[in-house]
């Protein structure tokens, strides 16, 4: 009986969490409300700061991982495909795997590890040290100044970094494949470009946009959920990271079901 109590409690908790998170996102993005003021230089400056932290500073690690993972995936695929089809469909499989799965997911994980945790710690510490309250008393909206720039930069970073990651990974994957097999790089690239269409690009963009939106929202929500104790910062950071990963997989599953 206790088990069912526990299960019921957890389900209710999860349901309320999703409602809270959705309300938080809708409230934050309701920038057309008369009391909101997002089009000003304070918000713009905060947005640029966040874009540098989340996006530009991640380029080095993204490039390294893209090269490395591209080579690893290509070598494994070549090995597997060689025994099945003689690596005829390698480009197609590589492109499908990288564009629809690996690129968005690995970028998402890097962003969760680097920026989601950083946002929770940053917002949590700002709240614990009472730095937000005086700004509210000066008429500065918390959602405008703290949340909107972070979510927006997270979305832009996820979309652009995933695109960059996928391109580098594909390129290095194919280059590596040409070293092992007698592939023509030009032919492989032409084949790849023929495979890309508006529909697949749209789904890729939408998927990354939703990834960025969910990770950014979860990070800000948990950062601002910190009350008065510094111990809550680590607690909320753990929750944010785990829940972001869960949301990432749920969204990914949804897109897989959508594209099957």
């Amino acid at each position, binding site marked *: 009986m206790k088990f069912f109590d526990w299960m019921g409690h957890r389900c209710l908790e999860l349901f309320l969490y999703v409602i809270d998170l959705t309300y938080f996102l809708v409230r934050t993005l309701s920038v057309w*409300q*008369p*009391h909101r*003021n997002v*089009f*000003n*230089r*304070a*918000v713009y*400056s905060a947005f640029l700061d966040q874009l540098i932290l989340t996006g530009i500073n991640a380029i080095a690690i993204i490039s390294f991982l893209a090269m490395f993972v591209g080579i690893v995936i290509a070598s494994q695929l070549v090995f597997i495909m060689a025994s099945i089809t003689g690596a005829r469909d390698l480009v197609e499989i590589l492109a499908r795997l990288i564009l629809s799965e690996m690129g968005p997911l690995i970028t998402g994980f890097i962003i969760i590890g680097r920026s989601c945790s950083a946002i929770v710690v*940053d917002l949590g*510490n*700002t709240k614990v*040290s*009472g*730095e937000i*309250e*005086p*700004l509210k*008393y*000066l*008429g*500065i*909206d918390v959602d*405008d*100044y703290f949340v909107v720039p972070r979510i927006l930069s997270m979305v832009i970073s996820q979309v652009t970094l995933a695109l960059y990651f996928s391109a580098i990974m594909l390129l290095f994957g194919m280059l590596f494949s040409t070293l092992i097999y007698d592939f023509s790089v030009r032919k492989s690239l032409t084949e790849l470009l023929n495979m890309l269409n508006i529909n697949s690009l749209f789904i890729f963009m939408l998927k990354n946009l939703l990834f960025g939106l969910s990770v950014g929202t979860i990070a800000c929500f948990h950062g601002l959920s910190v009350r008065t104790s510094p111990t809550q910062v680590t607690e909320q950071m753990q929750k944010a990271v785990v829940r972001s990963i869960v949301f990432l997989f749920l969204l990914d599953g949804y897109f897989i079901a959508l594209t099957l």
Partner: protein
Amino acid sequence: MKSLATHASIVADGAIPYSTESNLSFPPLKCHIQPSDLICLVGPHRSQLRAYLLMLAGIAKPVQGNMEILGQVISELDQQAWQKLRCQIGYLSGASPLLSVQPALVNVMLPLLYHVNLPFREAADKARALLAELGCHFELTTYPALLNSFQRLQVALARALILDPRILILDVPFNNLGASDRKKMGELLNHYKNNRAVCMMGGLQYPLFLEQHADRIIFISEHKIIIFNSWKSFMGAEDPDVRELLGLL
């Protein structure tokens, strides 16, 4: 609703604040605070004083009675009007927590960038001028963590004054300051009091300032509110609760 007193900056008419921090009882407050008035809230319970200060600042709505700030009834304000009103009220909080991720100069520029949307250069020039006027002779790109408590207070005061507010609300401005810094802070507050209603909480750490500049002392305890018209009358009060508080000085 008709304005209670058009000339007054802050009017409390039997207003009782709401507080989540304290279980104390709150007697109704009735007072008019005019421009250039310096009012000091004193009493034995800090959480109680804070609740009254937040109400007088228009941050918390009264649970009973009326609160009018600059001719606007607080309980009738919508979010947009409330936000506009905040630009006319400078707020300096006790520990003066500035944004730790931004340098001192950006902290001061922030209200200008957000509310007025001034270009960065103009906002920086204005912030620099105000900081110089306040006697800030340190590097303005320093982060708050590297400033001492008086320097942080100077920056926080500049941030509160940057929009040229008509009311200045101060939450224990002399806390954590040494004797010479208290004197400097007192001089700054006196200078920036002109044509502004200044309402502060605490201040008993620096009685000389209250003696010289306070226009009224409002004593607030659980059972009563007594308004004194000068420091002298406050010191000469015979009320046992006031005497008990003065005995702690």
